[in-house]
């Protein structure tokens, strides 16, 4: 018995030594160079009164929020990151879809030694425009993205290309950024061509006010093209049952404003804090629309200016517990429809989709979060929807620092 105890102790001592050596990066083995590895596990339960496939009124040619009913395994997200060599750092995030299959969410290389406030990133990354766009789903304050992100950016603009950012050498935070890319995802379409298919410019300014408050504000511009972007089940003036299939091609230009302000007593975010944020995007699409590609197939000019905004606030009222409120609103705009399609395409919906959302979440630790969310969704005319979601988000392994 005594012998056994001794053995165990000896092994424990040995293994803890070996372990510490490894942890300190002193071990002379390959494993010491393993990258940081993280895994996000998430899932939701959704209770909706309406079919989630119905698009917001006036936004049938845009993506839908993509809610799901019942129990759902959310996307599990696997992240790997490490310095590649003294010059580069690599980051990859794979989304494991519950129905099987892996998709590359992010896979980019970042420079680490350019200095002078310059950061260069290339590969696939979330665009730096707006405030929410760069945040991964596990860092969202609500189960879903605001309507304006869902409809104008298909939740998040993901770009294959190049990003350059420059941080001004000033006491106040001033950051300028530019991106060029393929423009393969909405609002662009994947096109076989040389050169750049999309471009974005953004500027962010931020600072502290005393020790308790901090803020950041930004402005963004984005430009791309859509070609043969087919949308199905689009309602039309003749009231075709089940809608028609339209195809749009043309330029897409978007401008946005974003701001976020945070407050914490003594600047101590552990106990209580308040966060208020809002964003506004306005998009002009200009080109030609082919009405009912499977039927009449009539092409004529089409241009429309869509816009949307949200304001949300999240309050951590005691350690571990937060509650949030969000108001969303969209404006489908009034389209200029060419004469040939004037009797076919709906130009004015006379309806502004909106939604109000409340959430409560509890985070037993920095690595786990449970959330309840209720929403009154008025985004479809005459089809108000009361939505309930329950969500869990858990993160394993290396937990990288979050951005502001």
């Amino acid at each position, binding site marked *: 018995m005594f012998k056994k105890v001794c053995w165990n102790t000896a092994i*424990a001592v040995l293994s*803890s030594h070996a*372990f*510490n050596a490894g*942890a*300190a990066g002193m071990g002379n083995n390959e494993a010491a160079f393993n990258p940081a590895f993280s895994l996000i596990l998430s899932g939701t339960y959704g209770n909706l009164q309406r079919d989630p496939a119905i698009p917001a009124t006036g936004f049938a040619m845009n993506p839908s929020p993509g809610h799901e009913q019942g129990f759902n395994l959310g996307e599990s997200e696997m992240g790997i990151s490490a310095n590649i060599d003294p010059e580069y*750092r690599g980051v990859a995030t794979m989304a494991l879809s519950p129905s099987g299959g892996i998709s590359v969410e992010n896979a980019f290389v*970042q420079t*680490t*030694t*350019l*200095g*002078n*406030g*310059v*950061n260069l990133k290339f590969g696939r990354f979330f665009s730096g425009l707006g405030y929410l766009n760069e945040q991964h789903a596990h860092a969202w304050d609500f189960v879903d993205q605001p309507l304006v992100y869902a409809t104008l950016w298909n939740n998040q603009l993901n770009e294959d290309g190049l990003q350059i*950012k420059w*941080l*001004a*050498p*000033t*006491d*106040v*935070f*001033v*950051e300028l950024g530019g991106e060029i890319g393929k423009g393969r995802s909405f609002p662009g379409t994947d096109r076989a061509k040389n050169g750049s298919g999309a471009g974005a410019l953004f500027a*962010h*300014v*931020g*600072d*502290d006010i005393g*020790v308790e408050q*901090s*803020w*950041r504000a930004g402005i963004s511009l984005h430009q791309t093209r859509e070609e043969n972007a087919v949308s199905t089940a689009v309602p039309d003036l003749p009231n075709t049952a089940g809608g028609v299939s339209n195809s749009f091609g043309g330029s897409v230009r978007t401008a946005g404003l974003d701001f976020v302000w*945070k407050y914490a007593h*003594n*600047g*101590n*975010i*552990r*106990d209580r804090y308040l966060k208020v944020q809002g964003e506004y995007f306005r998009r002009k699409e200009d080109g030609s629309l082919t009405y009912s590609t499977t039927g009449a197939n009539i092409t004529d000019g089409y241009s429309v200016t869509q816009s949307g905004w949200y304001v949300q606030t999240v309050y951590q009222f005691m*350690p*571990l517990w937060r509650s949030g409120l969000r108001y969303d609103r969209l404006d489908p705009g009034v389209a200029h429809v060419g004469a040939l399609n004037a009797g076919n395409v709906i130009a004015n919906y006379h309806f502004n989709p909106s939604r109000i959302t409340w959430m409560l979440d509890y985070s*037993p*630790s*920095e*690595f786990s979060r449970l959330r309840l969310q209720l929403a009154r969704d008025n985004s479809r005319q005459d089809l108000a929807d009361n939505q309930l979601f329950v969500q869990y988000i858990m993160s*394993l392994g290396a937990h*990288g*620092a*979050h*951005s*502001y």
Partner: protein
Amino acid sequence: MKTKQSVVSVEANPRLSEGYAVAKKILYAFSLLLLTSNAHAALNVFACEPEWAALTQLLGGDTVSVYTATGPLQDPHRIEARPSLISKARGANLLVCTGADLEVAWLPVVLRESANNAIQPGSAGYFEAAPVVHMLEVPARLDRAEGDVHPTGNPHVQTDPRNFLPIAEALTKRMVQLDPQGTAGYEQRLASFAQQWRAAIAKWEQQAGPLRGVPVVVQHKGFPYLNAWLGLKEVAALEPKPGMEPSAAHLMQVLNTLQQHPAKMVLRAAYQDGRPSEWIAQRAHIPAVELPFTVGGSDAAKDLYGLFDDTIARLLKGLQ
């Protein structure tokens, strides 16, 4: 509209030039505000915590300009990578932090976004205090089930004043390396600091004699270095695991522990919520003692000497 314009242009010249001068002044003031205001200092220092800001200021004198990233009433584990921190890091040529993963939640983002080569990990401008000293509570089992544990050991090294001597020495070496012209000044300031600090430690140790062997409860495992220095005996922690909020069930358990192993006081850092320790204090009939934990954590802890003067004074008061 037109008439108004012509009125302006009649008496334009003096007013306009005056307005121009004012605008120029405002622009100048604004650009001064924008530009890093410490261009004259030899070293622009980004200190992660107030204790390292204070130490760097003592050792650097007026050749350094120090920015403190976190306040004494902020939980140093929970800081956000705020825009202001990123822009301050951009202009720094020396970063002085605790290390040992204390700043892991925000510093990597700040460093990356700052795109400042001078202070990246591994460069001369990146200084960590914890690796210089002997670290305590190095976990034998690295598992998140143990809460917020730090792989290289407990990072709160600033609660033992003896740790400041090797840290000051290493930091001085670093400042000399970065600013060789100031060598004599740095070395002279180090020598006088070391002398005064040793005398102060002797004084504190003498004052703290009655504290040796005194059993205490801590809210967060933030004081192993203080305990080791003064011989305080930690019998329990209010956080069930490091970084986890004290739950009612766990507090009851601590209360039971205290009936078998009574403690003299319950300690917490100034940045921590007072309620859990007050709750225990009331029921166990022992005083709850709030320690400054860092420079600025209390009114009396105005500098590093004040930090330990006040820490000892508060502990002695808790003993009465």
